[in-house]
C-alpha cells in the first residue's frame, strides 16, 4: 500500500527574505524582491499551497490576499526571529458541522482522546531514548500504563508531568559534550538547548495549527490543556505526541551534528540571523524527510504524518472513528 497522493510536501512555504512581496501573477504565487533587484525569487502554483509562513519584513499584495482567501491558503506572520504574530485564516463555509461536534464532546470523550495522546507521548519518549541507546526506562513504561488508567484530567496531567521530568533527565545523556538540558525552563530561555527546544516547539505547534485549521477544527478548544484566552489548547494537545519524536529529536540532532553551535546564539540566548536561516532550512528539510509509518507501513513525510493525525483527530471528534489513534512509535 502506498500513501495517497496529496500535495503535502510542497504545500507549506517559508518566506524569510527581507524586503520582499508575495503577489499573484497569472495563477501563480510569486515572491518578488522589492528592495533589491533580484526580481522573481520563487514562484508556486496557487493550487499547490495551503500555508505561507512569513518572517519579518515581507508584505502581501492585496490581490494576493484575495486569492489566498479564495484558495483557502493560511498566512502565518512571524517576527524575523520566529515569534508568532498572527494569522490570516481564509473564510471557509463548512466549519459549522465540525465545530458542532467539537463543542458537543463530553468530558468522557475528551478524557479518552487526551489519554491516547499522553500515552503516545510517553511511549514516544521511551522510543526516542532507546533509539539513542538509553535503556532502563521501565519507569516510563509504568507511567504510560498509569496514563492509560487515569480517571480524570488532573491525574493525567500529573502523570504526564512526572513522565516528562524522568524523560528529560535521561535525554540529557544523549547530548554531546558541552550541552545540557539542566532544568527545563519555559521563558525566557535560560540556555541554548532550551532556546532551541522552545523554538522547535513553536515551529511544530504552527504545523499542528495549520493542520487543525486546514481541517476546520477549533484550535482554541482543547481536550487536555485548559482553555485560556488566546492559547491554542487543541494544538498543544495534538502536539504532545510529536514532542519527543519530532521536536526533541530534531533539536538534539542539530546539536549533536554540530549544525548549531554555541557561537550561533546572541547574548540573549536567541539564534543569530544567519543561524536562524540555517535552522529554518533544516527544519523544513526535516519535515519533508520520510519515515515508515508504524501502522500504515508506507513511507510518509513528517509533515504529512502531522496532517494525518489532524484528520484522525477530527474523525474521532465527529464520531467517524470510535477512538483517537495517536502516532505511536514503538521502534
Amino acid at each position: 500500500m502506498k500513501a495517497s497522493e496529496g500535495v503535502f510536501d510542497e504545500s507549506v512555504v517559508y518566506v524569510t527574505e527581507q524586503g520582499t512581496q508575495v503577489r499573484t501573477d497569472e495563477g501563480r504565487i510569486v515572491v518578488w524582491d522589492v528592495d533589491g533587484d533580484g526580481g522573481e525569487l520563487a514562484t508556486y502554483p496557487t493550487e499547490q499551497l495551503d500555508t505561507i509562513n512569513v518572517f519579518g519584513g515581507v508584505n502581501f499584495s492585496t490581490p494576493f490576499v484575495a486569492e489566498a482567501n479564495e484558495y483557502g491558503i493560511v498566512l502565518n506572520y512571524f517576527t524575523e526571529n520566529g515569534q508568532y504574530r498572527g494569522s490570516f485564516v481564509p473564510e471557509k463555509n463548512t466549519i459549522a458541522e465540525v465545530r458542532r461536534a467539537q463543542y458537543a464532546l463530553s468530558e468522557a470523550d475528551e478524557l479518552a482522546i487526551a489519554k491516547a495522546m499522553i500515552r503516545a507521548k510517553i511511549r514516544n519518549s521511551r522510543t526516542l531514548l532507546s533509539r539513542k541507546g538509553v535503556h532502563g526506562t521501565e519507569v516510563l513504561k509504568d507511567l504510560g500504563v498509569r496514563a492509560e488508567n487515569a480517571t480524570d484530567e488532573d491525574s493525567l496531567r500529573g502523570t504526564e508531568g512526572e513522565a516528562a521530568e524522568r524523560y528529560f533527565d535521561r535525554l540529557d545523556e544523549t547530548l554531546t559534550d558541552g550541552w545540557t538540558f539542566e532544568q527545563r525552563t519555559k521563558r525566557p530561555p535560560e540556555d541554548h538547548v532550551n532556546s532551541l527546544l522552545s523554538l522547535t516547539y513553536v515551529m511544530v505547534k504552527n504545523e499542528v495549527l495549520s493542520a487543525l485549521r486546514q481541517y476546520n477544527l477549533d484550535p482554541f478548544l482543547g481536550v487536555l490543556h485548559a482553555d485560556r484566552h488566546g492559547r491554542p489548547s487543541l494544538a498543544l494537545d495534538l502536539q504532545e505526541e510529536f514532542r519527543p519524536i519530532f521536536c526533541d529529536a530534531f533539536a538534539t540532532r542539530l546539536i549533536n551534528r554540530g549544525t548549531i553551535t554555541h557561537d550561533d546564539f546572541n547574548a540573549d540566548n536567541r539564534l543569530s540571523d544567519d543561524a536562524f536561516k540555517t535552522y529554518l532550512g533544516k527544519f523544513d528539510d526535516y519535515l519533508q524527510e520520510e519515515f515508515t509509518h508504524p501502522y500504515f507501513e508506507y513511507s510518509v513525510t513528517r509533515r504529512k504524518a502531522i496532517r494525518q493525525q489532524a484528520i484522525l483527530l477530527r474523525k474521532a471528534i465527529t464520531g467517524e472513528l470510535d477512538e483517537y489513534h495517536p502516532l505511536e512509535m514503538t521502534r
Partner: protein
Amino acid sequence: MTASSFKDELVHVSALNEYVYCPRRLYYQRYHDEIGTPYELVDGRSKHRGQAERGGWTTERYFRDDDLGLHGKIDLVESGDGTLTPVERKRAESGDYYPSDEVQLAGYCMLLECAIGESVNVGYIYLYSSDQRHAIHITDKHRRTVREIVRRISDMEVDNVPPLTDNPDKCEACSARTYCMPAETAILEPEKANETGWEGHG
C-alpha cells in the same frame, strides 16, 4: 420560504454522478468540503469554455424542477432542425465513460423533459481524449435510477457517514482519499470496513 432556500432542498445534477461513483465522497463534499481539487477538475473547468463542438452550437442553461427534485446547469447541443440534446463532457484519460456518467446524463434529459414538456430520449457524452461524441439512449431503467438516487441524496444526513466504497479501485484516483483514509481506516478500525470493498485490507 424563499426561492433560494427552496433551491437548497433540491439535488444538483452533478451530485448524481458523484453519488453513483461513491456516496461517501459526495458526503464529504457536501458536509465537510474535503474533496480536494483534483487536477482533472481544474482542467475540466478551463476546458469547459470555448470548446468547439462538432454538429451544432452548444449553450448552457439552468433548469430546475421541484417535483423531480433536481436543478443545475446543462450544456445543450442544438442540431440543424432545432432539436436540443443534453451533452456531458468528459475529460477521462481512458477514453471511456462510466455508468455514473449515463445516470447524470439521464438526469439532464429528465430536467429538459420537464422544461419543454416533451420526451427526451437521447443524450450525448463527449470525450475530449478521443474527440468522440457518443449518443446514449435513455431508458426507463435510467429514469428509475435517477429518481432513486435523488431520494437517497435527499435522505443524506451529516451524522450518517456512508460506508467505504465497494470498489477500492475507485479510491486510486479519488481526490477525497487523503481525507477519507479508507485503507488506514481498515487498519485502525477493521469493523468499519466490514461489508465494504475494503474488508480484510486491514
